[in-house]
């Protein structure tokens, strides 16, 4: 269970109250994969931080099964500079699993992100994209029940991004965590979401279910069509209800 009930988050900026998140109610069912898309500053990151428990709502509630473990991939890699790559991936697992299990998890997730060779490198020796892949490996190694990702692929080159998008879908299909992924890239949102939540000025302005089977191709006409419609909505402000499922309403 993962849910926001009338959740708001206000900040006081120069004496004025600004709502980063304004009365948002959303349910994320167990084992679903949802993408959240919107401009910079629309409240997507705040939404994710509330779900992660890193920020408390100013009003309303965040509900999460207490037994559910959380893995988070932040916008920045956030690696511990004093630990090498393998130790960074192992960081959340220490004292929770046996050394042998940790070693297996680390190897598996480093190979998933293609960084087996770099396991002994220090973060200062990594490029930005490599560091971000280590951060992704760290979250995957946790085998979390809830996986929250904030623009996880934006630091990556196009080829690596495409590959890791595939890895994410594979992992999701295999282990079925509840995934919420925040992105400003509409194509990515359409490629990865069972449904896409669109946000504007701290509010959820639409939630579109996409019944396109995984793995999806960027060139798939259905993907292209959704992308075009969501983009049109974001740019022109066309009402969200006008976006129909192209399969049901050809």
């Amino acid at each position, binding site marked *: 269970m993962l849910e926001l009930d009338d959740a708001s988050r206000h900040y006081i900026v120069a004496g004025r109250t600004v709502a980063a998140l304004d009365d948002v109610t959303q349910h994320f069912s167990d084992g679903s994969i949802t993408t959240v898309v919107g401009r910079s500053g629309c409240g997507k990151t705040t939404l994710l931080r509330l779900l*992660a*428990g*890193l920020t408390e709502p100013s009003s309303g509630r965040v509900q999460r099964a207490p037994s559910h*473990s*959380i*893995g*988070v991939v*932040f916008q*920045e890699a*956030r690696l*511990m*500079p*004093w630990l090498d790559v393998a130790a960074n991936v192992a*960081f*959340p697992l*220490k004292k929770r699993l046996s050394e042998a299990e940790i070693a297996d998890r680390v190897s598996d997730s480093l190979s998933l992100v293609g960084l087996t060779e770099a396991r002994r490198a*220090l973060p*200062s020796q990594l490029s930005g994209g490599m560091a971000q892949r280590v951060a992704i490996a760290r979250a995957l190694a*946790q085998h979390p029940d809830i996986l929250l990702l904030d623009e996880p692929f934006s630091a990556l080159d196009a080829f690596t991004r495409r590959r890791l998008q595939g890895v994410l879908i594979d992992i999701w299909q295999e282990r079925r965590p509840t995934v919420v992924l925040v992105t400003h890239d509409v194509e990515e949102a359409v490629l990865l979401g069972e449904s896409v939540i669109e946000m504007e000025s701290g509010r959820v302005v639409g939630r579109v279910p996409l019944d396109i089977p995984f793995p999806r191709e960027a060139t798939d006409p259905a993907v292209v069509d959704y992308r075009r419609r969501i983009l049109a909505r974001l740019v022109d402000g066309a009402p969200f209800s006008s976006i129909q499922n192209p399969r049901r309403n050809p």
Partner: protein
Amino acid sequence: MPARRILVPATVFASVILLWWLTHQAGWTNAYLLPAPAAVIEALVDLAASGLLVKHTLVSLQRVLLGFGLSVGLALPLAVLMSASRPARAVLDPLLEFARQVPPLALIPLLILWLGIGEAQKLGIIVLASFFPVFLGFRGGIDGVDTKLVEVGRVAGLSRREILTRIVLPSALPELVVGLRISLGYSWRALVGAELIASSAGLGYMIIDAENLARTDIVLAGILVIGAIGLLSDLVLRLAIGRAFPWLSPHLEAARA
């Protein structure tokens, strides 16, 4: 690269000595005020041969290491306590801020009254001089911890204690290292100050004793030894830290005590 790292400073030192020798040869300097390099080297050799140099050096070294060790031993727990506890901070901050403004040398008269003229007084001066850099370095490191790294620990479900030991303390290390190096340098400076007053052994004593005997060559020899040991101890500290924490290597180049 390592060759150049030795070559450049060696050339600088050699040039200074050459200049020193030349001014002497040209007769520009008074041999009493600035003895010739050869005279200073001769004094060094004599001191070494008589065993006095080793004796004074060992006495001084022991005082520095003990004083420095005491400072570190006091500063680290205090920094952790003050970073973790708001009441401790509220009580201790003003007191320490006041104490920080007072030069240790100004406290020498009080220290002599309280601690006598023995070892305790000398250690007291060294501790006063070397406590603050390491204390402030560690506090700055702890307070300056990247909250983004702390959040990584929070989402991983780490306890407060685990966050302290696994994230906050390691991330404070670079600033701690800078503090340690500055402290060690200050220990040396304070040591000589301490030994100039009421002392019967140590490099500071050797210098003041030589001054009384009008032996400028020994004064200069003492200064050279103190400088050389200071450089050497900083090098040893840097090597030890670099070996223990390889990821700190870039920080070690940046900061000079």
